[in-house]
């Protein structure tokens, strides 16, 4: 059925579930529909119930911990958190554990990482819920397995989920909101099934051309394309799916958190991670960065140490983001680069403030040329780190050996300059278009303009889907 991606079947399934859900405003009915839709969704992903046993065990460990914490059992929180982390590492078969300890039969792991974040969030927060009602097993399963967020997130907080899902009066769903969600589904479908698919083929072409006999000019061009295409592909692939699930959930009267906020407009690495996979960044901010920083600040109370402790905490937090993505040494290196980028960015900021003073730094940070160069640099850095995200060491070695160091330097310089110029032009054009307004707001976001581009994208998606005649591409973030 191809349900674990942004396929036409998945969209239809989600729309059917939303339609059923809206037959009654009762929270019981909506919960029954969501539960049934989730169970059927899981069954469509894997027909063999035995494959779900390890996942069920994982969820049981989580709920057991939650149950004990909610009853005030001392040390239950620490033990259950540790238990869930160990169970997760074991089920994901991290390579530092002995292979003999793993289950060798096939079992269902789709969405396990996202379930893990939700379960940990519940365990950490449940101690502080105070007078709030306890989380029952039904609500727990509905929250952790919700079919709209199961495969690739976004990572929603429980209180936000419960606020909408279990509300006596569900959030309104007027014709305008429905129209906006339909438009968003079309946009997401186009991003994943057309844009990301074509970009993925283009990246494969570029890799082949780079690593095989080719005239030197074409090789340089292939290297340039290889570098710039993957970040855009990844954005289209991930954010397109997120667009679809946010819209489907909204049609079921649940507001999911945003996961992207125009990430390539970011003018620095730190800014970028505020805009890319935002729910993951936010989760790590709450549960890794903040506690770690507080602990270190208590331990090292010198005022001068504060910024540098922050740098260290950035490194640890974003190193963990890299490691979360996979179990191989490539992902560890990706984590080192991501954490390193954040730390260097922060150190640069500290140094500039020291050299220029706060006012001077603010002036510089507001300079359009500085911002444009920052965008270009951020894009180039992200593209560089992503080599360890999509390629293995052998592929990276082959690609690196295809050009001389000087040629690579030229390619990266071209990437930086192109990204700087193109993103600056993009931002300017966008600002210009948004400045064309009527009394109701920007023309570009009017319902008429939205209908135009939703129709255009929908039509293009239909035509190209028929022409390409390929199955919906897999979601990169499904694997994590």
């Amino acid at each position, binding site marked *: 059925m191809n349900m674990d991606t942004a396929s036409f079947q998945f969209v239809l399934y989600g729309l059917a579930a939303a339609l059923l859900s809206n037959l009654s405003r009762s929270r019981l009915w909506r919960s029954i529909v969501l539960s049934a839709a989730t169970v059927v969704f899981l069954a469509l992903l894997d027909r063999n119930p035995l494959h779900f046993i390890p996942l069920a065990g994982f969820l049981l460990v989580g709920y057991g911990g939650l149950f004990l914490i909610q009853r005030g059992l001392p040390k239950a929180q620490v033990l259950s958190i540790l238990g869930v982390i160990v169970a997760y590492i074991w089920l994901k078969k991290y390579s530092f554990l002995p292979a003999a300890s793993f289950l060798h039969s096939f079992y269902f792991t789709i969405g396990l990482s996202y379930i893990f974040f939700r379960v940990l969030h519940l365990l950490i927060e449940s101690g502080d819920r105070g007078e709030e009602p306890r989380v029952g097993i039904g609500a727990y399963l509905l929250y952790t397995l919700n079919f709209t967020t199961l495969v690739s997130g976004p990572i929603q907080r429980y209180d936000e989920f419960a606020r909408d899902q279990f509300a006596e009066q569900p959030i309104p769903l007027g014709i*305008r909101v429905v129209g906006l969600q339909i438009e968003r589904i079309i946009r997401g479908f186009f991003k994943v099934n057309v844009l990301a698919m*074509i970009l993925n*083929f*283009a990246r*494969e*072409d570029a890799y*082949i*051309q780079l*690593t*095989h*006999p*080719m*005239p030197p000019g*074409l090789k340089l061009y292939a290297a340039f394309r290889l570098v710039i295409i993957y970040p855009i592909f990844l954005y289209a692939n991930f954010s397109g799916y997120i667009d679809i699930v*946010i819209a489907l959930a*909204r049609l079921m009267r649940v*507001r*999911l*958190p*945003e996961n*992207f906020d125009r990430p390539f*407009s*970011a*003018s*620095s690495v*730190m*800014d970028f991670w*505020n805009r890319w996979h*935002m729910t993951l*960044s*936010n989760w*790590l*901010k709450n549960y890794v*960065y903040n506690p770690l920083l507080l602990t270190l600040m208590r331990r090292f109370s010198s005022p001068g140490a504060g*910024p540098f402790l*922050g740098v260290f905490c*950035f490194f640890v*937090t974003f190193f963990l983001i890299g490691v979360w993505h996979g179990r191989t040494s490539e992902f560890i290196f990706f984590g080192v680069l991501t954490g390193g980028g954040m730390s260097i960015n922060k150190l640069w*900021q500290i140094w500039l*403030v020291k050299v220029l003073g706060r006012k001077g*730094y603010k002036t510089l*940070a*507001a300079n359009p040329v500085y911002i444009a160069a*920052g965008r270009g640099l951020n894009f180039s850095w992200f593209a560089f780190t992503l080599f360890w995200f999509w390629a293995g060491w052998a592929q990276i070695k082959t690609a690196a050996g295809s050009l001389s160091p000087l040629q690579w330097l030229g390619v990266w310089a071209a990437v930086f300059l192109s990204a700087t110029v193109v993103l600056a032009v993009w*931002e300017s054009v966008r600002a210009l278009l948004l400045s064309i307004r009527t009394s*109701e*707001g920007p023309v570009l976001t009017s*319902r*008429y303009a939205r*209908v*135009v581009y939703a*129709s*255009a994208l929908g*039509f293009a998606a239909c*035509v*190209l889907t*028929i*022409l*390409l005649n*390929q199955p919906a591409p897999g979601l990169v973030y499904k694997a994590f």
Partner: protein
Amino acid sequence: MPDTFSQSERDADRALSVGGETHAAEYEESGGRRKTSALDWIVLPLISAATIAIFCGGIRLISYLEFAHLKWLPGRCIVQSGSVLHGVPNSVCTERNYYSQLVEYRFNSCGDRTPFDCRQKPEGVYRIVLIGSSNPMGYEVPAESTLSERLSAALSRRTGRRVEVYNASLNGSSGAPSNLANRMSRTMALQPDLILWVMNAWDINPDKSEDQIRDEALQGSPRILRALRLLFTETRAGYWMREILYRSQSLYTAAYLKRIQNEAQTHATPNDEEHERMRLVSLDVRTIVDRAKADGVPVVVAFLPDRAVADAFSMSPRPAGIEPDRLNNELHTVLAGKGAIFADVVPDLRKALNLDGLYDPFGAHLNAEGHAFLTQILENFLTSGVVPALSVNEQAQSERIQQ
């Protein structure tokens, strides 16, 4: 747009704050602020329909302009007789296919695409008769860029003697081994000193075309679906869009794999049908080689993989379903046992700069660059000593180097 540099200096925690939390609400609100009037129920669908109409019209207009001068060869210079095609003697036609430039086809008095006389071989000329189907014929390629014309010039230059590569190939099923075997009397009447047979994958496995597969798949489908498919694939606009998309090697290979998957066939392992085809090919090869040998004419055979198979050489991991060397190796075995000389062009093809760029976007035919590259490979092979009469003339070679 907020700048995190300036924000984050307040404290380190700030840099991780999620600036887009209210994004969904804003997004909804941006639409929610505007009121939907009764008129919108008419205007908005009309806008949508107009947008789609403009898109359709735009694509149709571009493709119409792009393919304004399509011309077709069959029926004018090529006619069908029984199951095979024949060139019309002394005819001149131009054709512009969807994916080629305007190409002139000039047929001699015997209906072959060659400037050479079919009746009388000039004194002292070493004549190679080139047989096969569309690729050796030079389909979609101007005459001066075809394998036969290039090879004539290259071999004459290299060997120091006058060499004619007489192009007796014709596109379509005329190049199938069984038809070539049936036409051997005609081929021998051209007085060859050597027969060069360039074989396409399609000659051996005439798999169904994309169009045939689509037609079969659509049998019994709702009319609307069939109409949509036809609209997007069989029209000029469909060809125009596919031509653009198929410029991507990976995308073309994926489409090809989908096609052979639809046909339930694979190029990795031969099935019973393919075994039977190869058995028949070996019988035809025996007929051709025996007939040529009877007149003391050697037969050189080269196998030319199609674009998807050639592309698979450079893809890692190799696409499942394609084993690029299989057919070449099988033919090598069959031909060696029948007394033909096998010119293995695949190892040299692998070394080509931009191998994918040697084929047309739809993958069946070599383009002009492809013909030039194949000429180079065959020139080297034929002058390497396998055909003594074409061994390199040292004097001509040194003169050439000096030039």
